[in-house]
């Protein structure tokens, strides 16, 4: 009797559903699809992160793998927070991040605002402006060393031509006060298009009727800019600042190739310090602790910033 019922139900079940049941369930499929990615990230990102956390409490040195590893507790962290050089590196990083973001936002927003006039041929010139940001910061950054060469470098030549300063005295990379700016210039050249592109999306998201209404109210252009354009593009500007901020906080390749942290340690940003400690002095435990501190700092700042960003978006 019961068997008959089951058979009847099975016969009544539409064909697709029956097939679906025979196949993998949706839940199983979801996990089948997602788990490889999670496993890879666990193996390549999370496991090493925990290893680094463990190492940060030890005096381990990667160039002496057979030495007895001692547990130091929080000694590495204490030393880092009390280390003058680390604080100088953090200041150098902050200086770099501040100026690159300020310049890139100002120039990038201005360019986007001009492109938004939609002059003839704007699409072509926009694409041309975007080219530098797609290129390898390392390979292009390396070539800037050539442009910065005193005398024979194109950059130094143009600057001396315009300013009248003798070309041999424009030592962009070896002068203590110019070296940080040489990196800021290359970074700004490379990444202004990035900020520009995001700002352009912001400007284009502002509906035209708002401007029409403002025009009816006889609001001046100046007024329109400050009370419509800027506030409405602000979430986009902030998004660009967030991405550039994180990227520049981690900055390594360009600095490593342009100055290598020099002259002395005037351009030694956090990543360069980390590399010197970890791969030149081989203080693996100490540098792991510094890496963890940096990670927490980026993560914390980014979180605070995202919250602010969401608040602006809701307005």
């Amino acid at each position, binding site marked *: 009797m019961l068997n008959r019922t089951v058979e009847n139900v099975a016969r009544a079940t539409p064909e697709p559903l029956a097939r679906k049941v025979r196949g993998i369930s949706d839940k199983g499929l979801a996990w089948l699809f997602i788990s490889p990615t999670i496993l890879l990230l666990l193996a390549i990102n999370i496991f090493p992160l925990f290893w680094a956390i463990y190492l940060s409490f030890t005096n381990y040195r990667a160039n002496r793998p057979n030495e007895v590893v001692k547990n130091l507790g929080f000694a590495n962290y204490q030393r880092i927070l009390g280390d003058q050089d680390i604080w100088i590196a953090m200041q150098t990083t902050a200086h770099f991040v501040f100026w690159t973001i300020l310049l890139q936002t100002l120039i990038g927003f201005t360019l986007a605002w001009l492109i938004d006039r939609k002059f003839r041929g704007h699409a072509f010139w926009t*694409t041309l402006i975007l080219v530098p940001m797609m290129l390898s910061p390392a*390979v292009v950054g390396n070539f800037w060393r*050539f442009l910065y060469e005193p005398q024979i470098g194109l950059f130094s030549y143009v600057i001396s031509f315009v300013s009248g300063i003798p070309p041999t005295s424009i030592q962009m990379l070896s002068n203590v006060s110019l070296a940080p700016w040489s990196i800021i210039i290359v970074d700004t050249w490379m990444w202004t298009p990035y900020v520009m592109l995001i700002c352009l999306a912001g400007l284009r998201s502002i509906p035209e009727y708002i401007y029409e209404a403002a025009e009816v109210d006889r609001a001046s252009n100046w007024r329109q800019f400050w009370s419509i354009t800027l506030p409405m593009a602000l979430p986009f500007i902030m998004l660009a600042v967030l991405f550039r901020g994180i990227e520049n906080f981690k900055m*390594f390749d360009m600095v490593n190739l342009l100055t290598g942290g020099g002259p002395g340690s005037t351009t030694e940003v956090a990543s360069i310090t980390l590399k010197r400690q970890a791969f030149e002095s081989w203080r693996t435990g100490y540098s792991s602790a510094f890496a963890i501190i940096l990670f927490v700092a980026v993560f914390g700042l980014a979180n605070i910033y995202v919250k602010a960003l969401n608040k602006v978006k809701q307005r």
Partner: protein
Amino acid sequence: MSLTTAHSVVAPSANSKRVAGAIIIAYALISIVPLLWIFATSFKTPPDSIAYPPKIVFQPSIEGYCNLFTTRTRQTPEYINSLGPATGFCDETVRKRNMVIAGPSNFLPRFLNSLIIAFGSTFCAVFLGTLSAYGFSRFKVPLADDLLFFILSTRFMPPIAVAIPIYLMYRELGLSDTALGMILLYTAVNVSLAVWLLKGFIDEIPREYEEAAMIDGYTRLQAFWRTVLPQATTGIAATAIFCLIFAWNEYAFAALLTSGTAQTAPPFIPTIIGEGGQDWPAVAAGTTIFLVPILVFTILLRKQLLRGITFGAVRK
């Protein structure tokens, strides 16, 4: 004018357009100069490349490309004269500087490494990313937002910080300086981008397509394969190009974790030196060859660029 043509009251005036255009064109031209200079330098002879004032007009030469692909040794003129006739243009150029070609340089193997690692990791990242993105887009995954944030957060790590434990782990596993190790690492970095971008693209494909396919008797897997994937090709292609560009351009991991057999082009190009310092025409030649694929991709991608660089946060 305004009587005959109806136009928006807020459209920028012709004059402001002209000024805007002029400024933008000036900026574009100035910002492109360093790239033109790389291209020009690659066709200069070494003496021309370091001339003062910098030469804008010069006799083009492919010496930089010859030097890029070969290693050379200095010889006495007598020895060079005792050799047979030069076998090719590069041979001839090199002999004029009292040198002979000793063999191929490392550029080609490094360039091939870049190709293998970039394409290998892109394939893996896009494959894994497409599956995960579909999973996150269509199914109720517990803690989906947390998992997605976890996937993204791996991007916040400074590469040097990641490189320290990876260096130790790869040393234990024998993956140091291997293409496989680099492919795994770049896949892990790129998969976050791939998941986020592709989830956006797949979210845009209406669910009705799969549902219709499933009513027609397809299983979920078949529906994914036959309806979702074909619809997502543009998104998958764009994502693949972004992953490819990242892996192609990456320097920090490559510089720290590879030194020989698996070294890619970015850490290699800065080490090209000639006699008495950097051989700038050869560096420029290597840079030009290295950059051309990216230029092509940038033009192909220009419509998707915004999405790619913001992890899908901004769509047009």
